[in-house]
């Protein structure tokens, strides 16, 4: 082969490679176009959504962004026409829109009984979302040449409030029942950025300004009544109690996980159970749903519920792998996200509902969602009341 032929051959190879990449890119971009059903639901005036979100409508301002105009056009006329709700309002779901498409990754809100009628945040993309009592926390990644991460506060209007930088990839977030406190867990790379060994960092924040009140690693841990210390402690997965000075979390040490009962004022964490990951406290504060590592590679994590009075555990009726901090829909049903491709590896996921019983059957509650946060009717009414006196209605940037 002469040199000229080699050069030509190489040029051909380059052209082929570039062509292949471009074609592949176009295919991916096509695939990422909105899925018809979801797109349709945003353009149709959702009369059913209106009664459930009076306060959301009331506080929705008029930003010029095209997407929010879209949502607003759909929503505001309905709000005017709608009659006050007769039946008890269904809970609201705040979540990450997680179906590849135009709205992919956006913060979204929908009613649990009309999950396809969604309102999208104009400019908030969240990896994790939580919402309680009028206060929302969105953990977001700011894609740049180098990705940075931040936590953003938002309100019922889905608009940005304060924002604080995070030290690693978002993992979990929760807001306390009154909305005053929030917890954030991030994955932090260990000693070197090339090694993929992660540890977790969990903080408790004051939602008013985003001040960090505590890093869980600074709590004094006790086990069986005696102090316990270890350099390898890792905390994650906070769930707040009704008395929000108290919360449960996962503590990890030497390959084992523990359930700890924490006290923010006294800065203590007490081990109360073993082998519990990502606890989630039921609304009536009687049960904790959690994930537990099983030996099986097919379902690495299974969901359990722990009765806090009797300390009796029940394995719930979801046979698949659930790697999520579950959320309670009400006192007898839980929610969690599962990838649309059962083996994992799909960028899209659905939110599933499961009765918190050993023989419950899971069903899809909301297609194309991730990281659900439930706002139940009672709390919602309270939030609306607060809104009237203006406690949470305005956010400073």
């Amino acid at each position, binding site marked *: 082969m002469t*040199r000229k032929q*080699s*050069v030509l*051959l*190489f040029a051909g*190879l*380059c052209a082929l*490679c*570039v062509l*292949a*990449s471009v074609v*592949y*890119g176009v295919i*991916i*971009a096509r695939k*990422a176009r909105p899925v018809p059903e979801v797109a349709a639901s945003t353009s149709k005036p959702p009369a059913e959504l209106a009664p459930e979100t009076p306060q959301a409508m009331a506080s929705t301002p008029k930003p010029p962004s095209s997407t929010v105009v879209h949502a607003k056009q759909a929503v505001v006329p309905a709000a005017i026409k709608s009659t006050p709700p007769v039946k008890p309002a269904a809970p609201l779901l705040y979540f990450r829109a997680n179906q*590849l498409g135009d709205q*992919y*990754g956006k913060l979204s809100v929908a009613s649990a009984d009309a999950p396809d009628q969604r309102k999208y945040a104009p400019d908030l993309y969240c*990896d994790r979302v939580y919402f309680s009592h009028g206060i929302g926390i969105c953990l977001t*990644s700011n*894609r*740049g*040449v*180098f*990705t*940075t*991460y931040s936590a953003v506060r938002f309100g019922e209007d889905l608009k940005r409030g304060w924002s604080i*930088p*995070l*030290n*690693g*990839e*978002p993992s979990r977030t929760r807001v306390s029942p009154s909305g005053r406190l929030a917890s954030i867990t991030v*994955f*932090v*790379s260990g*000693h*070197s*950025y*090339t*090694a*993929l*060994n*992660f540890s*977790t960092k969990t903080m408790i924040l004051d939602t008013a300004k985003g001040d960090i009140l505590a890093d869980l690693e600074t709590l004094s841990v006790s086990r069986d009544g005696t102090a316990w210390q270890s350099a390898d402690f890792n905390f994650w997965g906070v769930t707040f109690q009704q008395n929000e000075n108290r919360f449960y979390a996962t503590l990890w040490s030497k390959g084992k996980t523990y359930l700890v009962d924490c006290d923010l004022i006294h800065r203590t964490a007490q081990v109360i159970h073993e082998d519990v990951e990502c606890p989630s406290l039921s609304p009536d504060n009687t049960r904790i749903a959690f994930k537990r590592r099983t030996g099986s590679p097919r379902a690495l994590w299974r969901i359990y519920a722990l009765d806090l009075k009797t300390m009796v555990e029940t394995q719930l009726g979801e046979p698949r792998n659930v*790697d999520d901090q579950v959320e309670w829909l009400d006192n007898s049903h839980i929610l969690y*996200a599962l*990838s649309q*491709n059962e*083996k*994992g*590896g*799909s*960028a899209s*996921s659905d939110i599933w509902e499961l009765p918190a019983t050993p023989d419950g059957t899971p069903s899809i509650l909301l297609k194309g969602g*991730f990281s659900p946060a439930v706002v139940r009717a009672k709390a919602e009414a309270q939030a609306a009341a607060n809104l009237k006196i203006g406690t949470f209605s305005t956010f400073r940037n």
Partner: protein
Amino acid sequence: MYQLDWIQRLQTRSTTSAAVGPRRKWGLDVSSNVWSLGFTSLFTDISSEMVSSILPIYFVSYLQFNPLRFGILDGIYQGAAVALLSLAAGILADRWRRQKEIAVAGYGFSAFSKLILLLVGGNWMLAAVTLGLDRVGKGVRTAPRDAIISLSSKRESLATAFAVHRGLDAGGAVLGPLVAFFLLRMVPGGFPLVIMASFCLALMGLGLISLLVEKPVAAPAGREISWQRSLALWNHRPFRVLLISGGLLSLVTVSDGFLYLSLQKRTGVPVTTLPLFAFLTAGIYLLLSVPMGRIADRWGREKIFLTGNALLIIIYLLLAMPGLGNRAAFAAIGFLGAYYASTDGVMAAMSSAVLKPELRASGLAILNTIVSIFRFFSSFLFGLLSVTGSANLAIIVFLAGMAMALVAVRWLLSGRERT
């Protein structure tokens, strides 16, 4: 001062290191083979860096894997296995007189690993294996490729040739994250596209080396190259001096990861800035590589090599001295780039100059292996000192060590010409 006249004259006569292809491209006395290999590395490095820049977020945010599962990945990254494999690859390249084929195989591993990642993206276990495969490819190709670079260059411009290659290599580290960023800009959520593009770039690199790099002119068929003969290079005094110097300096060199971590702790910037440090270092390396290589060829490679290592002392001072502001700390990154520009390619040039053509891949592989083993000890030592004492203490110990090592290496290198 450090002229190697007699060695050079002696070896110019005994070698047939003919340069291949047209010369004096872009005002540099560098053969087309070196340019081709440089661009091969550029493509391959863009390919690797674009994937590694998106990997954490791809796994965590896109595939929603739990990173705590990645713990077991640790060991795959570094390892004696890779070091030994690259040693074997270098020696076999000489033994079979197939430097090019083995280098091609090394680049092939990397391209193949991207293909696997593309096909099994969803399976984190296999995705982890591909990272290891990429690493193996890098180990296998380095020494044979450097041998081709040196065999395709004139003795008096060896450092320039390596500088061109290393500069393009650093260019890959700069361009990789940028390419990934712009692809993701164009196609949101287009992680598979980034991996596809990465595979294509790796394939282009592979095509470039297989099609356009000419095999270096074969050394005269002398004695067969045996394992013993390759390893007996240790007895070759001018080379042994370089091996000892390389090992000694590696032992007191703080690894980049630890330097960046100290810098991050000192300045208080978020941990997520660490990749930016590596990016800036590569940028400075890219800018300074060729000038440093030319200066090294003109003024003496040993001088530039020693100066480059002396820069590490400045870096350690900037990081360990209390009371210096953040700006001074960030200047350490500039010096780190300059350190690489004046040592990495220059060391390869110095070694090539004292190695017989038929043993060049073996020699470079032995040097690389010794350097990586001592770097491993250095990291271990630094980690131990940081845990038992403090990071600052560790830096000061390494500073003192580097000062002593520099004196010793200077003495060794000057002794080399006296014999």
